[in-house]
């Protein structure tokens, strides 16, 4: 008689063997089983990996990694640099990292690198693209990576070998649409934004599997729709309002937050009387249908090119003693805004620049109290902030524990002129005036640490140099905030105090946002400068 236990073991062994055979067969027969990036991986935010342009859905750009911290960041040293021939004039791309492989874009191309050595695994150059705009990054889901071409095709690639799966146009480049943003993955959809030279823009959701368009949200209402009357008799398909910055997403509320650009013609509002919905807004969209849940407009009837495409940061925090779901944004118009992201209700606004002369403040409904006579005029009018804005798409970041939002801010004024310019249709480059703007002063960048719930500025750090840079920030649990100065340094500051702890001269202007990742227990920091991609780690480890 076989002892009970032994028998059981044999049975188990037999079952295991059958399972093993089945499994082996499955491996042999099934297509390569490889790690799949799931939507919940994107939602869990950065760690070893960095899986979205803004780091996580809430756009915190905050990494929990602590290996590089306030005590040792002085030992940060470059480990590799890659010169990207054939990119546009400046690399705005933020790389993604998954499982030790880095995916970075350039204009009309993407490459996969061994993230530790910088060595190329594969690259893909989009075919038959005639335009060459900058590109801000890729998206990742499943076994694929996605990026937008200059001529507004979404390209899906197998991410291990760079094989192209499909390449689908989602906007007609022939009408002057062009595309630069990193796409946003929401569930099984890829959300894309567009820019144009006058024609109205939209956010579109394409199937991650097939590239088929599921919905489109137009940033300017069509004929007969709510808000159409905010444009006077302006032609239906004109007005632009681009969507060129990656949105944020709240999986719990199931709302996508997308920020929109300024109305066209940029500096001449005469032809488009009204508040020009949904220009300079944040719109909350249902990701299943693209339906508008609510909107909030920062600047009405904009004539200063103050796009509101700046990142919308989602934050759960106590606001005036009550826990609230907030959406905060430092806007190009000079005000820092706090909204309730469940319904778009305005809660607070405060200037985050010293020179702000176009408005007396923000009223109880969140509308700027505009000082008359600040529109561009033939004689010229001095307006602060400048056309480049009090901030721009330079990514902010937030350390939720410290409660500070780090914003690259620009103090600068400009003379805005208008002069009679014969009207030109979209797609030929038309601002509505001959003169655009003239600087009154060179201007200076500051990194400002803004108390996220009060709008008060806790500390600031000057980022001097000629104001050509377009760089953002990243915060880490190592107590650090990384950003750039206009003298081409990458800098690391103490996130609590703004104390300068480390800097590295990158040799050319910085046009992107830093990011961080970890491979085999070692933490790295990456950032582009010019058209080069640098990666750093602690020296001697």
């Amino acid at each position, binding site marked *: 008689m076989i002892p009970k236990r032994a028998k059981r073991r044999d049975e188990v062994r037999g079952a295991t063997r059958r399972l093993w055979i089945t499994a082996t067969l499955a491996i042999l027969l099934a297509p390569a089983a490889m790690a799949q990036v799931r939507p919940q991986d994107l939602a869990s935010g950065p760690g070893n990996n960095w899986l979205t342009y803004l780091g996580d859905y809430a756009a915190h750009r905050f990494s929990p990694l602590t290996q590089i911290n306030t005590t040792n960041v002085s030992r940060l040293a470059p480990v590799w640099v890659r010169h990207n021939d054939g990119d546009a004039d400046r690399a705005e791309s933020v790389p993604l990292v998954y499982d030790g492989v880095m995916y970075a874009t350039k204009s009309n191309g993407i490459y996969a690198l061994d993230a530790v050595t910088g060595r190329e695994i594969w690259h893909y150059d989009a075919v038959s693209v005639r335009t060459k705009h900058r590109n801000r990054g890729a998206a990742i889901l499943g076994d694929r990576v996605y990026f937008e071409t200059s001529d507004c095709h979404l390209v899906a690639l197998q991410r291990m070998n760079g*094989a192209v799966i499909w390449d689908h146009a989602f906007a007609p480049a*022939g009408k002057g649409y062009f595309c630069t943003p990193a796409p946003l993955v929401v569930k099984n959809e890829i959300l894309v934004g567009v820019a144009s030279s006058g024609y109205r823009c939209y956010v579109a959701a394409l199937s991650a599997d097939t590239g088929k368009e599921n919905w489109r949200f137009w940033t300017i209402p069509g004929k007969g729709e709510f808000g159409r009357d905010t444009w006077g008799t302006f032609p239906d398909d004109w007005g632009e309002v681009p969507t060129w910055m990656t949105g944020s997403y709240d999986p719990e509320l199931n709302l996508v937050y997308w920020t929109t650009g300024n109305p066209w013609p940029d500096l001449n509002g005469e032809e488009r009387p009204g508040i020009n919905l949904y220009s300079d807004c944040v719109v909350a969209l249902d990701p299943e249908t693209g339906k508008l849940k609510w909107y909030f407009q920062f600047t009405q009837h904009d004539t200063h090119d103050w*796009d509101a495409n700046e990142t919308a940061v989602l934050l759960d925090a106590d606001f005036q003693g009550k826990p609230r779901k907030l959406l905060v944004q430092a806007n190009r118009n000079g005000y820092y805004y706090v909204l309730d992201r469940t319904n778009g209700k305005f809660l607070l606004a405060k200037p985050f620049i010293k020179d702000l002369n176009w408005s007396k403040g923000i009223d109880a409904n969140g509308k700027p109290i505009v000082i008359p006579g600040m529109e561009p005029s033939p004689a010229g009018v001095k307006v602060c902030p400048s056309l480049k804005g009090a901030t721009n798409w330079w990514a902010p970041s937030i350390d939720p524990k410290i409660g500070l939002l780090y914003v690259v801010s620009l103090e600068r004024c400009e003379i805005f002129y208008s002069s009679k310019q014969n009207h030109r249709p979209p797609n030929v480059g038309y601002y509505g005036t001959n003169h655009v703007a003239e600087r009154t002063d060179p201007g200076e960048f500051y990194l400002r640490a803004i108390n996220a719930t009060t709008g008060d500025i806790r500390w600031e750090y000057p980022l001097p140099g000629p104001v050509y840079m377009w760089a953002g920030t990243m915060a880490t649990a190592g107590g650090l905030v990384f950003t750039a100065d206009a003298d081409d340094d990458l800098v690391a500051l103490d996130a609590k105090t703004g104390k300068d702890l480390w800097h590295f001269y990158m040799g050319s202007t910085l046009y992107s946002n830093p990011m961080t990742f970890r491979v085999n227990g070692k933490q790295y920091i990456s950032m582009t400068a010019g058209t080069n991609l640098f990666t750093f780690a602690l020296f001697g480890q």
Partner: protein
Amino acid sequence: MERAVLRQTNTLCLWDAGSFRIGDFRLEFAEDGAIISASRTKFTERLRGERMGILRRPKFTAAIAALCLAAGVTVAAQQRARGERRANGGRAGASAASNPLDGNPAAIAAGQTRFRETCAICHGANGEGGQGEGQGPNLITNSDVRRASDEALSKVVHDGIPATAMPAFPLPQTQIQQLVAYLRSLSATAISLHLPGDVAAGRAIFFGKGQCSQCHMIRGEGGFLGPDLTNIGAARRLDQIHDALLKTGSDASNKADLYGDPMAGYRAVILHTPDGKELRGVAKNYTNYSMQVLDAAGHLHLLRGEEMSRAAFQPKSWMPDDYQKVLTEKEIQDLLAFLSRQSVRPPEGPTSAAPQPEEED
């Protein structure tokens, strides 16, 4: 004394009274770099004259010859292209065709027949260039041919090239147009040829009998060891695809950059894993310090330092070299018909507009 001799035919330039003189030479170099003889062009006389003396000085010969060869090719190409653009209103690259028979399959077929009767003796049966002494250049890859306008090619056929081995063929205009259409088809991308064949059967061979999809992908379907073929018809000429399929490991397929070229990221390796398995893979990249291997199952192995000894380079690419035996002639034709139609974007042309005047920010 017996001298080792290197023979070379190339375009050579001569700095002569402030201008470059250009011509095609057949050169024979001795081991020490001295020119033993130069022949077959109108410049032969000059070379045998006083300047030949300069070139004979061993110290300078190699350097001068190399410089001249490089500069000569460039200068020749530029001058010819510029002249023709002026004369013909500009053929940018090889795009604008003025030949009324361009792309016409019947004309291409007629041109091919004429070519075999008239031109193949010097330029090879398929325009690949002649072998041995006195033979004509490769008409598929030659950049001057590809860059030339249809009119210029017609003129070369009709009038010949004086002082070279290229004679005049004063054929009727239609026959010359047929020849030019055929010449164009040689350098055209495969997709533009509308190659006859059963495309569906070709697809079945790709994913079935031919086992191509074990290593190659098309639109994300297939394996990892070989190059993606989704755009192969739009990116390659038919002869390149043909040679890559049937002349694996030959110069032709290497030049096509499809495989075999270690720089292209497809050098074959066997990877010995720590648990004793052997995996087929390709080295996507390798240096003294790191190697990035993609295995047949699509897993990446990022090797550093000593780990790199686990990857053993293989003498041959993973591409089989027996398709001539495995597939029938019809199957090869069908497979080529299928492959030549692969294109990421529709072949009708890009949807792009001119560069935009505005910046978004």
